[in-house]
């Protein structure tokens, strides 16, 4: 044993392995067991709490919707410079036509309009209007092709031209009334090389008909967009002489004819829909928000906005968030302060009364906890409104004239009164449990040494109760800063918090990105304050009891 132990300077266990590693192994097993025990809770918290919050916060930078809905436009727009004062080139408008056409078929354009409207008001209506009109824009080509040859009118001949032979055979064999799925469209190979744009658009069209609308491709006439793509393909005169498949004669005929076709001037067509398409800020907004990730939401939540020349401050009548953050912090501080003022004497009474009376009082303190929050808030409405209990009493006592009743609700006062009441127990309980541990003999000792009542309280009792104040204040302040339902009900327009704004963006305007950014800032703010508190007061000085 001793030989072994000194073998290479290591202690060995009875089984001859190094003591250190067996010890480690034993410890590791213990740790794993402990981890397994808490695993259900940990996984539960991760899945139901941390993950959704992280997902929600991620939305504050996410911005794929622009490049997903307008992929061609954003690409074409990348080189454009708005500072020159010129609107984008016709190619960009052409791309916009294609993107807009597909987006309105998929009904995605209004969603993107709402998204960009957060940045520049007016875009939502612009997109809605354009979505309604874009279908007619390319019809010029459709009509000309159809006038040229009936071949272009029919969905069947289109399918024969575009579809692969294998798919056409499958499609012919498919029984529409049966439950089996429609065979997925497959492109004829030669066509892809000859008419690249037509092929790409037709594939999108076929995919949409088959998978989104779940209709039979054989009965659906192609979009006007397909015709304008065909025009674009043919006008450059591709070499189609080698092609001998279906429709080769018609293609040759069409290629000869397109040169004399009436064309569509896309920039003018869009201007006709709405002159805003020729306004630089609209295009700058689209360009600025093309990347997949954006700092725009965070800038918005501090009253700034992205511009081509970097972040700028919003005009004064659009600034609200900084004001709301300050208001939220200020009112939370006032509420915390009034909770201390009201809660301290109650906690002192509780801690110093005989047990039976103290228990009764304690039940009174806890009673509001067992009442629904909504009931308590609504009760305050009844109490505080102009024709309410408080005002009626004051008028009856003659303290207030009947025609100048106090405005106690639907403003800041209402929020502060109601929230102080609702959060009071969170102040009293930690105070009480700290005061309970201060021996009464200290006060008696101070007095017997000649201190006045005040000095004994201020120099001896109060310093010992500070940890309770600290704990209560943190609880109340952090709860207050994120409070939502009470300010919403009694706060009117001047007594609402930033959380009401977050709720508005979550449930009404559906600007979840901005809501997430505001939430993230609020979270960071609370953490920063907690950190500052720890630095100044020291978190060790916080006690929730004994």
């Amino acid at each position, binding site marked *: 044993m001793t030989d072994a132990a000194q073998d290479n300077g290591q202690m060995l266990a009875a089984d001859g392995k190094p003591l250190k590693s067996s010890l480690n192994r034993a410890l590791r097993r213990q740790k794993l067991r402990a981890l397994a025990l808490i695993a259900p809770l940990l996984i539960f918290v991760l899945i139901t709490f941390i993950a959704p919050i992280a997902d929600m916060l991620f939305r504050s930078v996410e911005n794929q919707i622009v490049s997903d809905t307008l992929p061609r436009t954003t690409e074409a727009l990348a080189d454009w410079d708005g500072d020159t004062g010129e609107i984008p080139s016709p190619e960009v408008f052409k791309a916009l036509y294609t993107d807009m056409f597909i987006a309105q078929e998929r009904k995605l354009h209004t969603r993107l309009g709402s998204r960009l409207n957060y940045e520049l008001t007016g875009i939502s209506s612009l997109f809605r209007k354009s979505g309604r009109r874009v279908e007619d824009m390319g019809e010029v080509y459709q009509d000309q092709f159809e006038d040229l040859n009936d071949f272009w009118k029919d969905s069947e001949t289109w399918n024969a031209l575009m579809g692969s032979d294998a798919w056409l055979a499958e499609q012919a064999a498919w029984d529409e009334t049966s439950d089996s799925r429609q065979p997925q469209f497959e492109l004829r190979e030669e066509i892809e090389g000859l008419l690249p744009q037509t092929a790409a658009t037709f594939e999108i069209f076929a995919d949409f008909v088959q998978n989104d609308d779940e209709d039979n491709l054989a009965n659906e006439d192609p979009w006007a967009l397909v015709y304008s793509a065909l025009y674009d393909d043919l006008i450059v005169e591709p070499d189609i002489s080698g092609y001998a498949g279906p429709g080769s004669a018609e293609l040759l005929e069409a290629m000869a004819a397109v040169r004399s076709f009436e064309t569509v001037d896309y920039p003018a067509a869009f201007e006709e829909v709405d002159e805003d398409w020729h306004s630089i800020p609209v295009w700058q907004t689209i360009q600025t928000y093309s990347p997949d990730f954006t700092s725009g939401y965070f800038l918005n939540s501090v009253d700034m906005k992205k511009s081509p020349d970097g972040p700028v401050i919003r005009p004064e009548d659009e600034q609200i968030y900084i004001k709301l953050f300050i208001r939220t912090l200020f009112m939370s501080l006032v509420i915390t302060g009034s909770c201390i003022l009201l809660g301290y004497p109650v906690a002192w009474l509780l801690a110093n009364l005989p047990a039976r009376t103290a228990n009764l009082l304690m039940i009174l303190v806890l009673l509001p906890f067992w009442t629904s929050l909504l009931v308590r808030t609504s009760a305050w409405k009844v109490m505080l*409104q102009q024709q309410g209990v408080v005002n009626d009493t004051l008028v009856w006592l003659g303290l207030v004239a009947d025609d100048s009743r106090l405005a106690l609700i639907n403003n800041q006062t209402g929020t502060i009164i109601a929230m102080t009441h609702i959060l009071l127990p969170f102040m009293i309980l930690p105070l009480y449990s700290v005061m309970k541990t201060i021996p009464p003999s200290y006060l008696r000792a101070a007095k017997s040494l000649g201190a006045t009542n005040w000095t004994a309280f201020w120099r001896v009792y109060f310093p010992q109760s500070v940890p309770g104040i600290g704990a209560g204040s943190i609880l109340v302040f952090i709860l207050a800063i994120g409070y939502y339902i009470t300010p919403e009900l009694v706060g009117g327009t001047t007594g609402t918090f930033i959380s009401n704004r977050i709720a508005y963006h979550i449930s*009404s305007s559906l600007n979840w990105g901005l809501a997430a950014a505001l939430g993230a800032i609020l979270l960071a703010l609370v953490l920063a304050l907690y950190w500052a508190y720890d630095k100044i007061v020291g978190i060790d000085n916080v006690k929730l009891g004994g």
Partner: protein
Amino acid sequence: MKLTKTLLASTALTVASGMAFADGHMASEMTIVSWGGAYSNSQQKAYHDPYMEKTGINIINDESSPEGVAKMRAQAEAGNITWDLVDLEAADAIRVCDEGLAMEIDHDEVLAPAPDGTPASEDFGDMIVSDCFIPQIVFSTTFGYRTDQVADGVEPPKGACDVFDLETYPGKRGLNKQPIANLEWALLCDGVAYEDVYDVLETEEGQDRAFAKLDTIKDQTIFWSSAAEAIQLLADGEVFMSSTYNGRLFSAIEEQGQPIGMAWDWQMFDLDGWVVPADLPEDRLARVMDYLYFATDTQRLADQAKYISYGPARASSAPLVSTHAELGIDMAPHMPTEPSNAENTFVNNYTWWADYRDDLDSKFQAWLTQ
């Protein structure tokens, strides 16, 4: 070993039952979303109760229509549609239809024809403002005032423009926490001609003008977010006058005997009706369609007018409107379309609002916070 088995079995059971309920829809349930209060009550009595009696299907009421569009978007995004049928205003119905959140409907195929055989699309006529929209009622947003708070010798308020007259009618006002109707009234009462209101409101200056007019009464105004809240404010005497829907005012005045009077001038006509959320599973869709066929026929629409003073959307229902079901009073004088009430009326331009709602909503909310 045995314990493990029992544990496993009970876990499996819990998970299975959890999944059964997670869908939220038992085989014989339907969630219908509406506006709550007196309006939901009239639907309950005219549509839901007879339908439940007839079929045994249980109808669950959800009073979320004020946030209807937002929640439909959220449900579609989450891929979990929990609503079966939603009651929305016309402008909102157009919006959800544009965004593909609601199902397009062939009105003649889905809805019952009039008793004389007129197809539904003709019976509803112009009221079908969108392919997704099944009209139910014509309602108006108008003003109610406290009769006991009108000073002696002062003529009681007549309509929307009196809300801006703080001198003659001091006291708090109640307005909807939404731009619709408020902005139009502001412009009308600022001297803009009726025909020009929407043209003016389309411009930046016009919007600023409307907000400036609203600014004059902002600190005297309590903004309500549900119609029931507006009635509560009036009933408590918290506000002197408030905008709200005429049927709610009718119920407060006639059914509850509140000292409230109607101020009809420049009442705003609007439509309300059903939309079916897109992508409902087939079994639920079949149930909804069966309900719709029943609840929107001529008799049922006329029945609703027995409980609330909204005009039925079918032409064929109008002659069937009679007296209030419980009070026995004639309903016609309380209808927004009654000539003496309709001296000056305003028709909500739904399509205009569908386009400009997002823009003006965000402006209005920012204005509220300023």
